[in-house]
């Protein structure tokens, strides 16, 4: 920000002269103020333009402010310790030097206030520059603390400033996701992250208590964005990047300890999740839960309440909660009663249509891979899935059919589902009870998978081929369903579209004469051309 440079630029670009002029003036003013104290009152000009209408002016004012106050902080020309009121300072017995410092400290405080206000400005550029400026102040304050050092807990970290910043970031009215993603770079710093996390917790507690547990979508969205952008370190040795280095007793600083980080992180999430969330928020949280939240919690089992609640909601949210539950059951010895019963009841036609289909089937495959499951349970799952397959799209069928086959392979006593030679030749009604919620009572083992037999007539050749497998004993080797999990309809279509060498394309031999004719005239019977 060398003023000379600025002048050069302005002389070259005459068109933008007027716009630049303010900037030039401001940087000149800053220079003057720093040069000699008699120009101290010019600081009001800067603060004035900080509140201007024009975006460019504000931005240059922000830049000027940051330059000015950072320099002042460095020179320690801001009053330290508890700040007396402005009138008190004038009347009180302070030296001229102190008076000047008190004056400047007051200007600094008002500047910070204005900047915090700017964080909820409409213009993103202003928001961003204000935020950056505030972070610069925070760094400056960290180096040259304005308060007496609080060695007991927070050391020289400008906790209040960060708290105020976070409070303003988590707006209740506007979606700040863009700004928050910009803020992410500051979260790389360990101490900033630590204090931001604790600030979030305080803020969430305050705001949600005020709203009395009701859903505040925008606010919660902001909180979630900020929280999800926090990436936790894995090891204590990774804690190296600090904004404020503590010369003394650094080791004892809470922000330098991983378990403290984890504790704050955990408390932040629990504090957030204990309130009622909008449904979309549940999904978002659950999607990231298992790999970016649970591993960093000191006591992951504390999440059980949230997960159980989510699992009870039903639909896609339940599907997603499965993942977290799985981690808890698998790694943290959680005992979940009726887990399989609930899983069984999760199987509805919609599981084939939701976005998280691949994840669900991946997990279901893991849950059902145990060979210690009772036969009735596996048979119930197989039958239920087969029944649902009657409404599934081909991509899902290509997952479900191998899935069912794998179940039968793992539990050979389930083979009666596809091969019941004793009951041959005597037709009977399907004994399976669709509406029975308990897999133990649904009589799946007495049934057969006629659904798959029906799917042998499916229109898609791959599905029909897969369904044909039940006509012969299944092979020993399990099918790998992980490959088919993510296949989309378009990819399935491409298989036919991108066939390299077609020998010769069969053609329709019935001559086409009219648009609506042919194929049984279904279209022609119900629709006309005009």
């Amino acid at each position, binding site marked *: 920000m060398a003023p000379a440079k600025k002048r050069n630029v302005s002389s070259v670009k005459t068109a933008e002269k007027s716009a630049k002029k303010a900037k030039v003036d401001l940087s000149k003013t800053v220079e003057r103020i720093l040069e000699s104290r008699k120009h101290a009152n010019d600081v009001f000009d800067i603060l004035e333009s900080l509140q201007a209408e024009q975006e460019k002016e504000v931005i240059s004012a922000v830049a000027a402010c940051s330059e000015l106050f950072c320099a002042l902080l460095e020179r320690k020309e801001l009053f330290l310790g508890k700040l007396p009121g402005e009138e008190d300072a004038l009347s009180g017995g302070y030296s001229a030097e102190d008076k000047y410092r008190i004056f400047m400290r007051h200007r600094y405080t008002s500047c910070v206030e204005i900047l915090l206000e700017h964080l909820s400005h409409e213009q993103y550029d202003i928001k961003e520059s204000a935020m950056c400026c505030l972070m610069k102040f925070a760094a400056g304050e960290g180096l040259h603390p304005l308060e007496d050092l609080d060695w007991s807990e927070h050391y020289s970290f400008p906790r209040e400033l960060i708290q105020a910043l976070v409070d303003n970031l988590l707006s209740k009215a506007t979606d700040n996701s863009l700004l928050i993603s910009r803020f992410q770079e500051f979260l790389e710093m360990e101490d900033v992250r630590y204090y931001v996390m604790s600030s979030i917790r305080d803020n969430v507690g305050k705001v949600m208590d005020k709203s009395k547990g009701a859903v505040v979508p925008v606010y919660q969205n902001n909180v979630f964005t900020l929280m999800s952008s926090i990436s936790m370190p894995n090891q204590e040795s990774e804690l190296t990047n600090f904004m404020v280095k503590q010369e003394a007793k650094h080791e004892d600083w809470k922000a330098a300890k991983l378990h403290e980080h984890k504790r704050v992180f955990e408390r932040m999430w629990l504090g957030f999740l204990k309130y009622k969330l909008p449904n979309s928020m549940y999904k978002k949280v659950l999607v990231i839960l298992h790999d970016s939240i649970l591993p960093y919690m000191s006591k992951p089992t504390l999440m059980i309440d949230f997960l159980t609640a989510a699992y009870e909601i039903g639909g896609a949210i339940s599907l997603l909660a499965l993942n977290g539950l799985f981690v808890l059951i698998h790694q943290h010895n959680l005992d979940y009663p009726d887990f399989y019963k609930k899983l069984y009841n999760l199987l509805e036609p919609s599981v084939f*249509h939701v976005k998280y289909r691949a994840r669900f089937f991946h997990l279901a495959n893991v849950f059902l891979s145990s060979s210690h499951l009772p036969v009735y349970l596996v048979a119930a799952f197989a039958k239920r899935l087969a029944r649902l397959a009657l409404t599934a*799209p081909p991509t899902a069928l290509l997952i479900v059919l191998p899935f069912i086959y794998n179940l039968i392979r793992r539990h050979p006593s389930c083979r009666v589902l596809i*091969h019941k030679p004793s009951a041959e030749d005597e037709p009977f009604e399907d004994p399976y009870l669709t509406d029975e919620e308990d897999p133990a009572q649904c009589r799946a083992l007495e049934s057969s998978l*006629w659904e798959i037999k029906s799917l042998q007539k499916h229109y*898609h050749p791959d599905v029909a081929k897969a369904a044909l497998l039940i006509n012969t004993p299944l092979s020993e080797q399990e099918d790998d369903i992980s490959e088919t999990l993510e296949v989309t309809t378009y990819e399935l279509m491409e298989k036919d579209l991108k066939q390299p060498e077609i020998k010769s394309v*069969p053609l*329709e031999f019935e001559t086409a004469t009219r648009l609506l004719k042919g194929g049984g005239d279904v*279209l022609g019977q119900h629709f006309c051309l*005009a």
Partner: protein
Amino acid sequence: MSWGEKASMMWVCPVYLDPKPSIRKETLLKEYKQKNRCSKFIDRRFGEYDTKMAPEDKILQRFTMERQRVHEKKDVYNLNEEEELTHYGQSLAEMEKFNDVVNSDDESEEKGLLSAELTASHFGGGGGLLRKKALGEEEEGGQRAKSRQELIEELIQKSKQEKRERQVQREEAQELTEKLDQDWKNIQSLMVKKTPKADKQEEKPKLEEYDMMVRELGFEMKAQPSEKMKTPEELAKEEREKLQKLEADRLRRMMGEEVVEGAQSQIHFSADDLNDGFVLDKHDKKTLAYQDGKWNMGEEEEEEEEEDEAEDEEGEGESSEEQESDAEEDEVEEEEEEEEEEEEEEGSGEDDGHSDLESEQESENEEEEEASPKPKKTLSKEEVKAQQEAAKAELPYTFAAPESYNDLKDMLRGHTSDNQRLIVARTQKSNHPSLAVGNKLKLQKLFGFLLEYIGELATRSPPELSTIDKLIPEVYALCQMFPDAACKAMQSILGDAAHSMEETLEVKGHAAFPTLDMLIYLKVTALLFPTSDFRHPVTTPALLFISQALTKCPVRSLQDLTSGLVLCSLGVEYVSFSKRFLPELINFLVGTLHLAVQDKASLGYIVVPPFRASGKYSDLLVLSSSESCRSWSKKSLPLSATQQLDLGNDPDRDTHRLTCLSTCLDLVKRCCLLYKDLPSFTHIFQPIRTLLSKHLSTQTLPEPLQELSSEIVEAISSMPVTQSALVFDKRKPIPLKLLTPKIVEVLDYGKKRGSTREEREKERLKHKYKREFKGALREIRKDSRFLAREKLNEVMNRDAERKRKVKELMGSLATQEGEWKSLKRKKK
């Protein structure tokens, strides 16, 4: 020598003969004995060294040779007696048996016969045996009658002259026949269809052209009498058989069996087909006739023109007569032709050879398709006529193939739909692949442009669907010409549409219903390609697209619903033949029926996405007032209703709702019929049954809909709910392990096997070489041993001789001595 045969002797260089142990004495020994000599005695009597010949044969042969030599110089006047007379390398004696009928008129042969007989008669010979006797006596007779010799010479001269005359005659005749051949050829090409067999015969250079032609003529006249006109019943039968064959083919593909190479051409190709897809049909002639300004001429002139044309286009394909005779063969072409004719003809009652055939086929078609009532057709014919009259002045007859899509648009702009079709047809004709090299590509492009054009017509507002309707036959014809290009074009359209849908799905999670052009494309796909194939490069993706649209596009308005129902109808059409299970179709129909349910509480069934059990758009089909039920009557929905719907007031909207509902119910009914054989039929239709019997039956609906719904419920409940348990397919029992040893023929023992062929060959050769080498060595040793033995023998013999001689000498000396001594004694 004993047979008076001179032994020919010759000095030759010694030849090394194969040293075999048995013949060593005869070869090596001789050689040894001749070692230092430079001359040799060789016996050149016939077969002397031939060991294979029996001695008797040898003697006989030698005798005959001797006899031949004796006769050699004696036969001054013998023209051709002793040697066997041949003609073209065949014995004349054989020919005398007249077993070759075809050559009987060959004069040269006759001549040969004659002369043989003549000479035989003059020399008093009767048969072959007598002749020899005569020869034997000749020596005496020749000198006895000198006057006769003159007679003979005369005779000879006469016969020679005759010979010459005959030759001249023959040449003339040949010339004439050649000329005849030429003429015949000209006529023949006009009259008779050449069979490919004939071509093959021509290729053989050995046979004479004329003979061949005659033979061919004979065969053809006998084997292929012109076929009688078929009775209508026969034609119908053939038509049905052909359709049955095509149907069988379709079924086979539906089952997904592997396509047998070569057995898959659906179109019958006539023997003369140039395989370029060119169809010389009525349409051509029409255009041509029209070009001459004789569009409306009577039948005579038309026929004349047809004949002209037939001659003009001789190289191209069948002439009109051929078409007639091949009528039953080229049915596909005929069909097409006749379709075009039906629409193109102005119905002036012209009556050429086809008309009765066609009407028959037409009625057959109608039986098959059960569509397009006749009266309507004639009406449209007249319309067409009127339009053609109007357009007569404007339309040119040839069109350059459009190079770009805009060219095509420019070409078609401002024309009526019928004229647009005519233009496309003419473009297609005037750029036929057989006319120029680049035309194939041009027409392939034209197909793509046409598709694009169809899409554009469908997206116009209002959509010009009737024009599309008119263009369908052209698209079909082009597709039949270039299946591969058509397949590519269709695939790219489907691929693009599916891709864009996939992209919106990824972003938003749902997509809008396909627009009208896509619906039309899907329909066109079904028209051009078989939908029943187990796997087809176009229809399988198309079906996937339909299913994707039915699962991912939420219904948010009546337009959406109409689009959905169009897609459902298409889905039903796609699977109507193969009866394949399309779950998305049932899901969508259930969802649609659900939209009509008033009370959404206690459903008893589950709605599948994209529908929701309750929500903003879940009451789309609920009637606003039950009044509208009374006034409602079923009408076809316009396809444009998928794009925009102007339903201002509630009654209109209710009418539309009821129409949608009736369409939906009809589709459900069709599905019931389609899927009645599926084992899980009851489970698939359980939601529909619940919906209809519990929910919709309580609501007020028009009479026909009530009936339809109760019919469906009945159909569903009448299905058997019992099933027999699943078992694996019975498989062939696995055969027991066979314990018989496998016998492998080992050709060379002790040799390592399993190496490559070359190596084995090399091994074999090495081995052979070794053996030969050893053998040779052994032979040489034996030879030397033999020679040594011989030498020893010689020496021994010589020594013995010498001893004997010495003994003799000594004996004689002794006697001499004795005598001398006794003499001496006596003297004493």
